[in-house]
């Protein structure tokens, strides 16, 4: 056995562990979205169901556990998050770009100072940015009396856009700096020399050159904004974004609807990435084709390789895809065989749980409670908890999770 095989083998194991570490939790979470149980879990597996993507569930005790489709707080949060994301993109991309362009113009020691100041916001804790934005605008709103300033100064979405832009524009700045470092400044000079005005140089030379950076800065700004919590939680005031909604849900106990949401987001991301890749490859192929055409048209006859053909190539990800297909088929057959899919399964599970629940209630009812026991006397086993679990009305009074 040659040593390279061994190294490849170890490398494979390493990569597997690495990816398992990265994606394992996400995969587990995605699977829990299809379990009909009230808590995200894989074992015990109740039934395979899409309910958490749809209407959720009215629980046996009367609570409504909302699904992805019926959870209006989640919807409101997503809408706010989208608005904030759009606002952050429109603010931080131009700010980052302008700052990066300024950096290329500044020479001397000022450059270092300017650079340090520009990247400082990413070094601040997000919490502080959030709080300070609120404090500042609260004062400003107080100054202006009733009116525009006072309105926007107390508008959570507006404040969140400002607060997030503070540090997200710095990430945009870094993206633009990286791209501008490779910019050949003589191109600007050439354009000037050919009679272009400074504005024309900017729009015809610099912006086209920066367009890939603009795209990636926009995507990154949006993603950072969408997933931000620690700044947002302060600056959002009485509104809610997706992250704050999720956080408040987690505090009360998570529902598989969140798994469903996570899976949806992951799926959207993968689809977007795949679409981008497909489009990119298409463009590349089109480009190669035109080049080939040029070569055929222009080159001398004896310089064309007549035997040149593009052979069929096995796609590289084929093994992964095959493994996924096998697992899916296996999972599906298991589910069908054990009758784990469909309304009948869910009904059965519910009935079982309901009967267990009433058994428990009945058991509780059966225990005679005296004053002595409730005040935590020497008798009774529940004194450690002040016996709150001994109260039969506890679950009935509780309004449910929403």
């Amino acid at each position: 056995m040659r040593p390279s095989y061994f190294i490849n083998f170890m490398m494979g194991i390493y990569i597997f562990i690495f990816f398992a570490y990265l994606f394992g939790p996400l995969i587990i979470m995605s699977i829990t979205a299809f379990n009909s149980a009230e808590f995200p879990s894989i074992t015990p597996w109740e039934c395979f169901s899409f309910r958490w993507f749809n209407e959720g569930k009215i629980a046996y005790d009367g609570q409504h556990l909302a699904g992805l489709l019926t959870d209006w707080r989640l919807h409101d949060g997503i809408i706010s998050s989208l608005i904030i994301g759009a606002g952050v993109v429109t603010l931080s991309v131009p700010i980052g770009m302008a700052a990066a362009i300024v950096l290329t113009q500044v020479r001397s020691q000022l450059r270092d100072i300017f650079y340090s100041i520009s990247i400082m916001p990413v070094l601040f804790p997000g919490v502080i940015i959030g709080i300070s934005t609120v404090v500042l605008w609260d004062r400003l709103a107080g100054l202006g009396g009733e009116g525009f300033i006072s309105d926007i100064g107390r508008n959570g979405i507006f404040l969140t856009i400002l607060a997030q832009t503070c540090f997200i524009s710095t990430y945009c700045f870094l993206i633009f700096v990286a791209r501008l470092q490779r910019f050949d400044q003589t191109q600007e000079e050439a354009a000037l020399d050919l009679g272009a005005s400074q504005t024309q140089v900017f729009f015809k030379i610099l912006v086209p050159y920066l367009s890939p950076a603009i795209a990636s800065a926009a995507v990154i700004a949006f993603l950072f904004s969408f997933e931000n919590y620690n700044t947002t939680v302060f600056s959002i005031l009485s509104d809610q974004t997706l992250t704050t909604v999720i956080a408040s849900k987690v505090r009360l106990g998570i529902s598989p609807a969140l798994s469903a949401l996570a899976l949806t987001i992951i799926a959207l991301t993968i689809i977007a990435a795949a679409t981008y890749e497909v489009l990119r490859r298409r463009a590349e192929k089109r480009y190669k084709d035109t080049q080939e055409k040029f070569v055929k048209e222009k080159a001398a006859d004896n310089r064309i390789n007549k035997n040149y053909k593009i052979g069929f190539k096995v796609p590289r990800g084929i093994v992964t895809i095959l493994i996924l297909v096998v697992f899916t088929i296996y999972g599906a057959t298991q589910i069908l065989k054990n009758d784990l899919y469909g309304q009948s399964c869910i009904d059965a599970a519910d009935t079982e749980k309901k009967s267990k629940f009433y058994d428990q209630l009945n058991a509780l009812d059966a225990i005679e409670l005296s004053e002595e026991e409730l005040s935590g006397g020497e008798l009774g086993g529940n004194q450690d908890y002040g016996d709150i679990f001994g109260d039969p009305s506890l679950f009935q009074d509780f309004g449910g999770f929403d």
Partner: protein
Amino acid sequence: MSADVELSDVSVTFGSFYAAKNVNVKVNGGEFFSFLGPSGCGKTTLLRAISGFQEPSEGKVLIDNKDMSGIGPNKRPTALIFQNLALFPLMSVSENIAFSLEVRGVSKEERKKRADELLELIALEGQGDKKVHQLSGGQKQRVAIARALAVEPKVLLLDEPLSALDLKLRQRMRTELREIQKRVNITFIYITHDQGEALTMSDRIAVMNEGELEQIGKCDEVYNNPLTPFVATFVGENNPLYGKVTGIDGDKAQIETADGQYLAMMNESKKLNIGDESIAFVRPESLFIPRDGDNFDNKINVNIESFEFEGNLKNFYARLQSGAKIKFSVPNAIDTSTISSGSSIALGFDSSKSVILPKASLAID
């Protein structure tokens, strides 16, 4: 349409450093004029002063007798071809060429027409849709020229545009450039550190060193009558013979060196007096192995050290008795089988083919 370009006492400083110092030169309309000088001597700086990217710290740039101070590069009747060409990589060849028309608001059809004309001028018909990086080095070169010509400049400024090309292509582009210049008949100001390039293409050249002009003149004038030891050794090759002036006879001077006395031509503007420290220069191709009937007024004894075959020439490296090195070249057609390393021979050269100049530093190769 072409224009005169005049630099009057132009100096450019970076901090306390003179990148160009007191440059005075007048380039005539329609002329192919070259600035020749070693790397870092300030050629690009001068060109940037003419095109408007660099305001001179002293002096004036005049184009068509109009003072250009305060006029930006986009307002001057010049077009610059950059050292690295600076083509726009995101645009097609045609878009590159028509860029100057686009920013002037010329209509699309008009631009296309003009781009096609220029493509024909540079012999790249039908290749306007290519991207810049699909072109070869020489083609890029020509696109850069076409792009500059599209502005219809009165003066075209070229900053070592051929330096990135290989020798054969460079030679071909020289002729092409020269032809294009004749066709469009505008002033070309060309910059190079390659003396061969300057000599073959230019009407006149200016030799620069350390930010200052050393000599301006026609090519043969500069080659045959260098004004300074720097020019003598930078333009072509030259053997220096160090010594003192011992006699003056009309326009010739006698120089006494460690290896003997030689007679050489004095330059009118660089008159010498007896006793002056000076250098006589003789070019490798002006040193001859005397044959019967030859009568040279200077004789020089050398010890052959080594030999090098260059193709059309055979170069011999030798030493004088004092140890000074000397090089001479013999056309390949001449039989030199009798000359071997270590042998000692006498060479001759004509005083009219040798110049004597006041002592100063040489161009260090």
